């Protein structure tokens, strides 16, 4: 995603401030809450990003939605963002914050692709295995795609470890085609 550099800077400042106030976990929960709200409500996101709606209205709306539901720190932060006219970046800032926090706390996000939904036990096995290989805490998300046919692919950051049946079949096709042409 083309992310504005400013969002990373706001997120970093917030994390550092939260550390000073010994309030990192609470801040994370608040940010996750904001992110969830934005993810759930496409209208809110469009409202914030719209260039037609006046900044004051956006500030008032943010105040109404999040006021009293988040810690003072995050509340102040939202007012700051509003004052600096960066309301439209709030989703990017939230993403950047989670990224920086994960990096800070040694957490990696792993996405697994499977053909059939895994049981909780299987999922925790996979999680433990990734954790033991990478030596980091793992946050896992699962995506079910029947076209994979079987096996599993794990995506950690940009690297994919692909053991799906679909990928194997594609590789076999390549091998057969290239040897057929010789």
């Amino acid at each position: 995603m083309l992310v504005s550099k400013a969002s990373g800077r706001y997120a970093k400042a917030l994390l550092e401030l939260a550390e000073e106030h010994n309030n990192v976990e609470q801040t994370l929960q608040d940010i996750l809450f904001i992110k969830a709200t934005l993810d759930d409500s496409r209208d809110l996101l469009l409202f914030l990003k719209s260039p037609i709606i006046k900044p004051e209205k956006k500030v008032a709306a943010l105040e109404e939605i999040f006021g009293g539901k988040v810690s003072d720190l995050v509340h102040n932060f939202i007012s700051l963002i509003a004052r600096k006219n960066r309301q439209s970046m709030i989703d990017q800032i939230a993403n950047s914050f989670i990224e920086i926090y994960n990096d800070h706390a040694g957490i990696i996000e792993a996405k697994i692709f499977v053909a059939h939904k895994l049981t909780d036990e299987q999922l925790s096995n996979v999680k433990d295995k990734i954790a033991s290989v990478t030596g980091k805490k793992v946050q896992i998300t699962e995506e079910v795609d029947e076209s994979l046919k079987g096996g599993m692919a794990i995506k950690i950051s940009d690297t994919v470890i692909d053991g799906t049946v679909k990928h194997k079949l594609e590789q076999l096709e390549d091998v057969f085609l290239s040897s057929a042409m010789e």
Partner: protein
Amino acid sequence: MSQVRPDEVSAILRKQLSGFDNEADTYDVGTVLEVGDGIARVYGLSKVQAGELVELPDSKDDNGNPVTGMVLNLEEDNVGIVLFGSANAVEEGHTVKRTNDIASIQVGEGLLGRVINPLGIPIDGKGNISGDTIKLPLERKAPGVIYREPVTEPLQTGLKSIDSLIPIGRGQRELIIGDRQTGKTAVAIDTIINQKATQDTDKPVHCIYVAVGQKGSTVANIRKVLEDNGALKYTTIVAAPASTSAPLRYIAPFAGAAIGEYFRDTGRHALVIYDDLSKQAVAYRELSLLLKRPPGREAYPGDVFYLHSRLLERAAKIINDDEVAKKMNNIPEELRPKVKGGGSLTALPVIETQAGDVSAYIPTNVISITDGQIFLDTDLFNQGIRPAIDVGTSVSRVGGSAQVKSMKKLSGTLKLDLAQYRELEAFAKFGSDLDASTQAQLRKGERTVELLKQGEYQPLPVEQQIALLKINSEGLLDKLAVEQISDFEKQYLETVGIKFEKEMQSLSETGVLDDSFGDKLIKIANSVIDQITAN
């Protein structure tokens, strides 16, 4: 029609399957953010290298093959990729996969006689490249100083005016520059055709013709000319015609250089023609502007000089010492066991000028990079002087030391004659009002110019050139009218060929024209001249 037995098929399939490992495959991916004008911006691919090939498995071109691209820009939050195939198939959100391969080409003996695209894929409809091939990177650093040798062996172009006045040596870079329609490509093609004579010797010259941004019909025509003249079997044509995308036109000369390096580093001789580098520079400018690199003079990016200098530096004469050559820098591991010394790569880049303007950006750049230039002039061409080489502005900075001895001796007086003729040419219209010595100089100059004319696709072996220039230096041609020179040339060479086959053979091998043979040549010339003037 041969039949395939089912049990045979299953045996083959079983064999293929048995070697198939069951390990998980690890690769790096990114996501297309935006695409347009043949450029894709990609998020992810955090470990990708500059110049690496990437594949877009989600985007299939018209033939169902995945679109490929090359990484050119590594930026803070995204990666800029140029697409080789049709960009229409690429959509936002498509996956981009690393191949862990720097852009490279499969090179082998099987390439000779073929027409390929800059990625090494044959486009002449004759099937796959046969024989063993080695993967060589398109971008490779030029050999260092200690692996080189001065140019000492001649590369005969078969053109009288070039071999005598602007000689080219093996390992040299000589620019062919001129306006459109002045015969630049003809000079290059004649040079390729003339290498036919070297194929039977122990030092054959393999040729590579790189066509950048030309019409497809022109490329087909060149292929046909080479085939008709028996030159295709030792030539590879790398074609990136005008219809191909800018990235392919940009990498085409590098593909040609990589093929040339294969011959150079295995102790053989190669000649590569880049026709033409101005079109490659335009393709590179297109890419650079789309990648938002800042434009400089004539909107070319700042590194357009480096683009051409790093390409032309790869032309070299390699030291004739296998031990030293084996230690050469940046040799791909696959090639290392085959490395031998004594090879060479000669480059003849072509630049097209606009209205004779050699002081434009790209022409001045390439003139300063190369070891000399052959300047072709529209006025000369229209006067019927073909090849239209402007002897005054054309130079060869290193070729002199590679020239055949007797040719070197004869060319000294030739240069002087032509220089004096050019000085007096303006007075020629005064005719009989001039004094006798001026008239004599004009007379001689006219005949020399006439003698240096040569038809297309008719290269002359060096011994015949020497035999002709010997007669000119003796002043025998003054007895003939200008119109009779071409008749004389034909009859004289025919007679010499019949009477002195052995002597001509030794002349071509040693390059020494002794006095006794010289006298014999003069005698024959006199008799031919008498015969012509008598009619």
